[in-house]
């Protein structure tokens, strides 16, 4: 017992000393303590090389903390006790945070490079006149298929998923809005529909898809598709670009009849403190060279027009990730629905999952 206790105490002391040392090192190497920026973002959502470059250019050290869902981020910022300077919510969450008074408006006089952003991605319904947000990345919801099992080009539309030959072949992303959403889109309904009868019809249609559904999973889809575990998956373009990079048999399709168009934008939460650093960072990220470097590293589509022009031709002209204007016109952005309506979506979705 005595040995055990001394062993535990020894471990604690060693860990404590190491932590102290690391902390000390970080402070001395990261210039002065006050020159920091606390960035709260999705996991692996910025090129680490850029963070180093930013520090070299401006002297601000960026502390990155990550979240894995908009809702988790919302809860953490709302509860306070944090000091995040910038965060990257998706479209509907920006609307929600705005309504909850969690965002600070941007000071347009201190921003440079806003003219770089493609006008199609500015002044959108979730943030009119971009009072609160600067575009970061955008993307779509679509279908990934493996040409080992599916004839290339044979899947173009949502309805193709319902074909009986795809029995037990499809993986779906575990997200109520997206799964209900593509069922709605396949019926030419709005992906923001809240009418109970329409949602019921969408669920009924999903129930007919059940025999084809192999699994409803989350991030693991990436791994499964790369390992040829399933022939078809429904997932976001960002995830798809990572899969395509690791398995050349995979292809991504955005159904032209309509799908979700999503945005992740940089916003300043009300917990922000380091305003000089914030504007330095926003302006830094708006520079085409940096935005292009980030887009090439992450693989998502950049809303920065000159940055897109800097990307290699193979990326820039890739219709999978930069769909045609015609397709973009049919894409829909999710609106922030009231909790009761979100509940409606989730109840129908849960029923589908029970059924499958």
């Amino acid at each position: 017992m005595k040995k055990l206790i001394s062993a535990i105490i020894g471990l604690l002391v060693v860990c404590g000393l190491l932590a102290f040392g690391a902390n000390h090192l970080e402070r001395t190497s990261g210039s002065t303590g006050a020159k920091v920026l606390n960035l709260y973002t999705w996991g692996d959502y910025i090129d680490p090389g850029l963070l180093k470059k930013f520090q070299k250019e401006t002297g601000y050290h960026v502390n990155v903390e990550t979240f894995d869902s908009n809702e988790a981020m919302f809860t953490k910022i709302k509860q306070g006790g944090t000091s995040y300077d910038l965060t990257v919510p998706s479209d509907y969450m920006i609307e929600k945070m705005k309504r909850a008074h969690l965002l600070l408006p941007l000071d347009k006089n201190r921003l440079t490079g806003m003219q770089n952003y493609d006008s199609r991605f500015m002044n959108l319904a979730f943030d009119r006149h971009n009072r609160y947000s600067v575009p970061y990345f955008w993307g779509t919801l679509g279908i990934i298929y493996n040409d080992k099992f599916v004839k290339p080009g044979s899947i173009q539309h949502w309805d193709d998923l319902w074909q009986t030959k795809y029995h037990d072949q499809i993986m779906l992303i575990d997200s109520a809005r997206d799964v209900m959403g593509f069922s709605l889109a396949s019926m030419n309904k709005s992906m923001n529909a809240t009418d109970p009868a329409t949602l019921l019809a969408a669920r009924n249609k999903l129930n007919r898809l059940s025999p084809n559904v192999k699994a409803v999973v989350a991030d693991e889809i990436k791994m499964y598709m790369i390992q040829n575990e399933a022939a078809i998956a429904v997932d976001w373009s960002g995830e798809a670009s990572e899969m395509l990079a690791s398995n050349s048999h995979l292809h991504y399709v955005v159904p032209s009849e309509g799908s979700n168009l999503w945005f992740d934008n940089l916003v300043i939460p009300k917990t922000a403190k380091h305003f000089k650093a914030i504007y330095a960072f926003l302006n830094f990220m708006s520079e085409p060279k940096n935005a292009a470097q980030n887009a090439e590293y992450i693989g998502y589509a950049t809303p920065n027009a000159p940055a897109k022009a800097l990307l290699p031709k193979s990326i820039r002209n890739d219709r999978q990730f930069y769909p045609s204007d015609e397709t973009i016109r049919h894409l829909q952005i999710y609106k922030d629905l009231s909790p009761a309506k979100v509940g409606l979506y989730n109840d129908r979705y849960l029923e589908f999952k029970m059924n499958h």
Partner: protein
Amino acid sequence: MQRKQRLSRNTAYFVPYVLWIALFVIAPVILLIYQSFFNIDGQFTLANYQTYFSSNTYLMMTLNSVWYAFLITLATLLISYPTAYLLNATKHPQLWLLLIIMPTWINLLLKAYAFIGIFSQAGIANQFLSFIGIGPQQLLFTKFSFIFVAAYIQIPFMVLPIYNSISELNASYVNASRDLGATNWQTFSRVIFPLTLPGVKAGVQAVFIPSLSLFMLTRLIGGNKVITLGTAIEEHFLTTMNWGMGSTIGVVLIIAMVIIMWLTGGRKRRSGKGLTK
């Protein structure tokens, strides 16, 4: 005088324990029950319970949870009892026990991912099936694989209490039973099994209750083909943010657990200790 002092010192020892229980067990349960009486707009209501008990989905889900928890417990028991029994007969039971407990030192998530590797299309299990001529099968995302992995994870928690009660068993009872002409089967069913029942009950409690609300495995291994109440709770807390409804399901689960404890507990103390000593 001295006695009184000792008594007050004894009560002082209880303070941390009572504080701990009050703060981390009783208070959360009360909060959960309190929370379950509010709807999504923060108004006091009984509607959550009404929804729960009148919704086909939730009732089916409850049935599903209990059914799968039962299957997992059964599978675990069928493997664990013979294991514990044989363990007791080996030369170095502590060593074997250590080997059985070892997997619990590894994080659940890691174990789940390991099984994904084993069961996937190109995994070891399918390589073996191809080798013996059966050909690759769909193993992941089946009910079988879900129960298999869940049972694998729960086995140590079942083996331990059963092993303890078997090793506590007084060998003279078994000898007496044999001397009096009982067959092996009679000895087992009339003497050994009833005497080790407390261990089985403790094991069933330790396995059945967590199995009721497994939710990570339902997605990772079951591919959401198995939906339990845990899935619904996760969804209500994380996406719908309807904490009232999530709490209601939590309360129902707690009640279910109390019922299980009551059914499997009860006479444990009296019969167990009295006979073995």
